[in-house]
Structure formats: structure tokens, C-alpha cells
């Protein structure tokens, strides 16, 4: 129902490179291209921990928009939906190294983990010290709670990037940054839903049945299919069901304060997002959970997928303080 077969490209195979050039030109005060890497225009002071992420493209503004003050130091963009290879990640590690060690944040996907592991091994071989890797996952649809380490990374990882970004900027040491990344991860859950599908821009393959008009819940960030919901489910039903699943999984204690993120997977209107958000607030209020921070918008997209994800992060005072710290990326400012 919702698959666009033509894109404003010159050539699909040149799309990622041309995107990087255009985006960097538009945001020259914040980022620049260094070879195949997106790096800060103004590097972090010496001695601080460098934050690196290697990730597939097609999720913009993640991660090209998340490089900047209070956020990441280096983004290693891969091909569409594909992690970059170990060579690129190794370059990214070297570029982020300001003498305080480097934290490689990896969204849990088979390819991403393997390529990152290869890069870390090569970094050791080359004598680059103090490289730590933390694997991030949050998607409750991808594995049961007792096997949470098998879960996929989703839009909830935004909480990690933001909070750890602030900590590293303030001078937190490598072990503290890695520890904080794990702490935020363990307090974060996400779940996605979508209508229709998208097609891989190069292969042209639709990642699901383009004629299917049912809502699917638990889709992956590369369009990996989820499970279908009935035709009649309205926005409020969907918000209630999804928030219910997240809260059941996270089991926030009484009086918990959460950040609520509503990620636009691509082409949802702000009208729909606002309606879904309204339903989510009601569902959380019913459960006695206080929403202390909210974000609505495109964080990690799946091209122009008509979908969204809710992410919840239970926050203590320290996390909240870091969450509120200034940040200045091309795709996110506060």
C-alpha cells in the first residue's frame, strides 16, 4: 500500500556518498567528512573519551545527525542497512581517540557486532589502547526478557547516545562511560509498529508484502517483519497495547520517572505521532508512571517506512541531569 518505487537520487549506488556530502555541506559548523567518516567540526578536548558508532545508512538522522558536542565524536556510515566493515570502524576508532580511550557503541545486529569485534581485534593488533565496546539492545519484540542479551537495537538507543554523550563531554572516564552505557541500556525498552513496507533502494526488494494493510508490531529497524495486528485497531488501542508490553517488560518501580521517546520510522505524519503520543501518555498515567521527558520525531528511521517506535527509559537523577545537558548535532540540538 505504501511503497515508493522512485526516489530523488542520481544513482542508488552513489546515494550514501552524495548524502554525506550534502549533509556535511549543510552543517559545516557541526560536522565534516574525513574520508568515509563523519567527524565533529570541532574535536573534543584532549583526554576525553571518544564515542564512536558504526552503522548502516538509511536511518537518518541517525547517526549522521548525532555527531557533535555532547553527542558522538565519530560516525562510521556503512552502506544502506549494512554495518561498515572492520576497516572503516578501525579508522573511526583512530579518529575518535583523544587520549582518553574510545567507547564503541554497537547496536545489536549480527553484522554490526561481528564487524565491530573484528575492528576491536585489529585495534589491539595495531596497539591502540583503551578501546571498549558496548553492545546495545532494547527491542522487546526480538527476544523474551530472560534472553534480553539476544535482543536487537532499536530507537531506544537514543537515550544511551544522549546520556553517555553528555558524560563523555564532561570528562567521564572510559570505565564510567561504558558502565553508564550499560546502565541506560538496561533501563531502556522499545517496541515498533508499522504499516506497509519499504524497498531496499538498490536491490529494489520490498521487505514485506506491499499490499498488506495490517499494522505489524515488532518490526526491525531495517524493515524486518513483525507480527500482524487486527484491521480494526485504532491509534489508542495500539498505544495502549504497546506501552503495556513495554511496562510489563521493564517493570519500573512505583513512582518511576521515565523518558518517553516516540520515533518516527520515516513517513508518519506529526498528526499521527501526536495522536499516538496522546494515547501513550494516557496508558502510562493509567499505570501510575510519570513521564518526565518526551521526544517525538525521527530518531532512527527506516527510509520512509510508515511506522514508529515507543521507547521508555527509567531515569534516576544522575541520568536525568546528563539527559538535560546541552547537545549540538546536525540532527538533534538541546
Amino acid at each position, binding site marked *: 500500500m505504501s511503497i515508493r518505487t522512485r526516489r530523488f537520487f542520481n544513482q542508488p549506488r552513489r546515494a550514501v556518498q552524495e548524502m554525506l556530502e550534502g549533509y556535511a555541506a549543510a552543517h559545516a559548523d557541526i560536522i565534516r567528512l574525513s574520508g568515509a567518516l563523519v567527524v565533529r567540526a570541532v574535536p573534543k578536548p584532549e583526554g576525553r573519551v571518544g564515542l564512536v558508532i558504526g552503522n548502516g545508512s538509511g536511518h537518518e538522522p541517525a547517526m549522521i545527525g548525532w555527531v557533535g558536542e555532547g553527542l558522538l565524536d565519530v560516525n562510521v556510515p556503512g552502506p544502506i542497512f549494512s554495518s561498515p566493515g572492520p576497516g*572503516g570502524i578501525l579508522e573511526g576508532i583512530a579518529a575518535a581517540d583523544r587520549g582518553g580511550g574510545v567507547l564503541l557503541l554497537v547496536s545489536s545486529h549480527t553484522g554490526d557486532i561481528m564487524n565491530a569485534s573484528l575492528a576491536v581485534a585489529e585495534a589491539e593488533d595495531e596497539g591502540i589502547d583503551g578501546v571498549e565496546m558496548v553492545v546495545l539492545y532494547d527491542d522487546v519484540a526480538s527476544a523474551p526478557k530472560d534472553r534480553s542479551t539476544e535482543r536487537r537495537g532499536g530507537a531506544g538507543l537514543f537515550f544511551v547516545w544522549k546520556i553517555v554523550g553528555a558524560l563523555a563531554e564532561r570528562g567521564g572516564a572510559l570505565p564510567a562511560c561504558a558502565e553508564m552505557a550499560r546502565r541506560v541500556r538496561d533501563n531502556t525498552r522499545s517496541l515498533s509498529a508499522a504499516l506497509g513496507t519499504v524497498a531496499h533502494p538498490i536491490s529494489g526488494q520490498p521487505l514485506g508484502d506491499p499490499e498488506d494493510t495490517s499494522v505489524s508490531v515488532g518490526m526491525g529497524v531495517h524493515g*524486518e517483519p513483525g507480527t500482524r495486528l487486527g484491521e480494526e485497531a485504532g491509534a489508542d488501542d495500539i498505544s495502549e497495547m504497546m506501552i503495556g508490553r513495554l511496562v510489563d517488560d521493564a517493570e519500573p518501580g512505583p513512582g518511576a520517572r521515565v523518558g518517553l521517546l516516540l520515533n518516527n520510522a520515516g513517513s508518519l505524519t506529526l498528526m499521527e505521532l501526536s495522536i499516538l503520543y496522546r494515547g501513550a501518555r494516557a496508558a502510562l498515567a493509567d499505570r501510575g508512571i510519570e513521564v518526565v521527558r518526551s521526544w517525538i520525531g525521527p530518531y532512527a528511521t527506516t527510509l520512509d517506512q510508515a511506522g514508529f517506535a515507543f521507547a521508555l527509559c527509567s531515569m534516576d537523577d544522575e541520568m536525568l541531569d546528563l539527559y538535560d545537558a546541552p547537545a549540538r548535532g546536525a540532527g538533534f540540538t538541546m
Partner: protein
Amino acid sequence: MAVTSMDRSLAARMIVSASRRVAEHQDELSRLDAVAGDGDHGVNMAEALAEAGRRIGGQDDRGAAGVFRTTGGAFHETVGGAAGALFGAFFGAAAGRLSGIAEPDASDFVAALGKGTARVMRLGRAEPGHKTMLDALAPAVEGAGAALEAGEALAGVMSAAARAARRGAVSTAGMPPKAGRARYAPDRSLGYQDPGATTVALIFEAWADEMNREEADR
């Protein structure tokens, strides 16, 4: 005449013929990957092998090991993703086993396949039966080993590997996925072959054809 060793030129022709074969099946591979993955496997493999072909063309002579090492590098630098890492590791480990051997024979080659497969298992933490490229790779190594023990030269060894790889790839259609992206939608891919395993079969079939052609030519 039987081909008893693999020189640089033969290894290079193997990569080029694998590249051509995979390119021909690129859409089918991406379609298989779209069933429960992200629909790019054919593109990934075709691009990496094409890049490997280009790099080998411009390379000076370091024997079969050099060709395989270059191929692994092309996988790592061109595509990333799961298969990029795994095929890259496969060729890299195979190259390591062949390194220093001027004219590797069938037994070196079988050993190299084994090294590559072991590296894939270690990196991906999957096992045969998980519906991955290993379900074609592991039987291929076994088939090649058996042919070697039966006294076959390179062409026979490769043909046995190709037959086993194809059988393995076909068998993945019946498996529930236990690794890679497909495992998050376990029902979707039932009845469909694993794309990575299918690529392995295509590569070994291209190699077997190349060897048989070579034998006929000599």
C-alpha cells in the same frame, strides 16, 4: 589432464567466475533476503565480488593466498553487514592457511576451506543447522575432504564440495532460523532457502565449473 595445484591465475579465475555467477543470481539472493531480512544480500555479494575482481586484476603476484586475502579485504571494505564480515573472515582465514605455499594442492585447499569455515563459526557464533551460510559451507568442507581421501584432484574435490554445498543450501529451506536477522521473524523464512547458504552454493558451483573447464583445457 588433472589440475593438481592452484596457481595465482587459477585462483583469480575462480574469483572472477564466482563474481559472474553471483551477479547473475543477485536478484534472487536479494529476494531471499527480503523474506525475513533486509533484502540486500545479492547486492552485497555482487558488489564485494566485483570489487575483489577489480583488486585482483591490478595486483602483483602473491599466489593463490594473495588472491584470497585480497578477496577477503574486498568483502570487509565494500559491504560490511553480516555476510561481509563472515565472507571476509572466510577468505582471510583461507588465505592464512595457503600463505607461503607457492602452488597449493588439493589437500592445502581443503585445509584452507576448513580454516575459513572454522573462522566463520567463531566469528558468527552460529552452528550448522542454524540456517546460515554454514549449512552450505560445513557440508562443502566435508564433501571436499571425502573426495580428497578418495584420491580426487582439485576438480573432483571441488565438484564434491559444490554438490554438498547445494544440498546444504537446499536443506536450509526446511530449517527455522537461529542466527542472523531472520531469527526475529522465525516463521517467515520457512520454505525459503537461506540467502548466505545459497551464495556459498553458487560460489562452489562456479569454482567446480572453472576447475572442470581448466582440466578439459589442459
